[in-house]
């Protein structure tokens, strides 16, 4: 049996993989300076463990795995300790804005109504996308990290919870609250 063994060529990394890794990072953290730092950190960290490269996966796959770990680290830092607690609490508390505390009915102010989102016109949809992007940028860091891991990388709920050190219950509260928030933000900014 012949197994392909991949080679490693650190002197070609920048030319071959830097743009790819940069695009990968920026799609997930949306901050150019931080994405640059992550690419550099990834290469420097990889140099330290070149001797551990076994050639079973391609160089790019190997580098991407290192970068991925660093991105989760950024998510974790952004949402660790006090910040995370505050984000979870915010999710729990603000639900009372949307629903009556006694019976769980929609509050008059927040009850969903039909608006442009129910339209199928591509021009309308494009405008909605722009608004949605702005609404997403206003989300707390932890909420957005969860959404990115779930909807960009299709990670399992268990994996997200263990990587961000969240309970399942907090995870679902945040998912629920994020969607309530985004939907309301879209309706509010839709003219």
């Amino acid at each position, binding site marked *: 049996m012949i197994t392909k063994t991949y080679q490693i060529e*650190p*002197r070609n*990394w*920048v*030319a071959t993989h*830097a*743009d790819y890794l*940069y*695009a*990968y990072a*920026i*799609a997930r953290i*949306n901050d150019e300076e931080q994405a*640059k730092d992550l*690419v*550099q950190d990834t*290469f*420097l960290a990889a*140099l330290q463990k070149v001797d551990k490269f076994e050639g079973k996966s391609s160089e790019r796959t190997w580098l991407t795995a290192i970068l991925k770990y660093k991105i989760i680290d950024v998510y974790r830092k952004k949402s660790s300790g006090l910040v995370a607690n505050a984000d979870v609490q915010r999710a729990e508390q603000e*639900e009372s804005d*949307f*629903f009556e505390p006694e*019976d*769980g*009915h*929609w509050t008059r102010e927040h*009850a*969903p*109504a*039909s608006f442009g*989102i*129910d339209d199928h016109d591509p021009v309308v*949809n494009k405008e*909605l*996308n722009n608004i*949605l*992007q702005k609404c*997403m940028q206003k989300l707390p860091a932890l909420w957005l990290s969860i*959404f*990115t891991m*779930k*909807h*960009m990388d299709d990670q399992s*709920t268990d994996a997200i919870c263990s990587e961000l050190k969240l309970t399942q219950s907090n995870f*679902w509260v945040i*998912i*629920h609250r994020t*969607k*309530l928030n*985004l*939907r309301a933000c*879209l309706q509010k900014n839709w003219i």
Partner: protein
Amino acid sequence: MGPLKKIVYNCHKATFLIEKKLIGRITLREEIELRIHLFGCGVCRIYQRQTKKITGMIRQLFADSANSEKHLDDTFKKDLQGKIENELDKN
């Protein structure tokens, strides 16, 4: 009020189940409760339709940004190349 009756009138719980069902699993009992609620609640039916569409839009936005052609500037690359060469020459 029994648990079944509770959800029949509870939009908070119903929207929670709508979200859970979209990306995870809900139990058969929850599924039945949710259907009864949606049958009688037009506002949550609107919510369900809109939130499904929002999930689709979010996935599309993420997919677009994952495929975008972002490039590093040459100065940064040159500098980075230098740092890598330095590290390699140390050994």
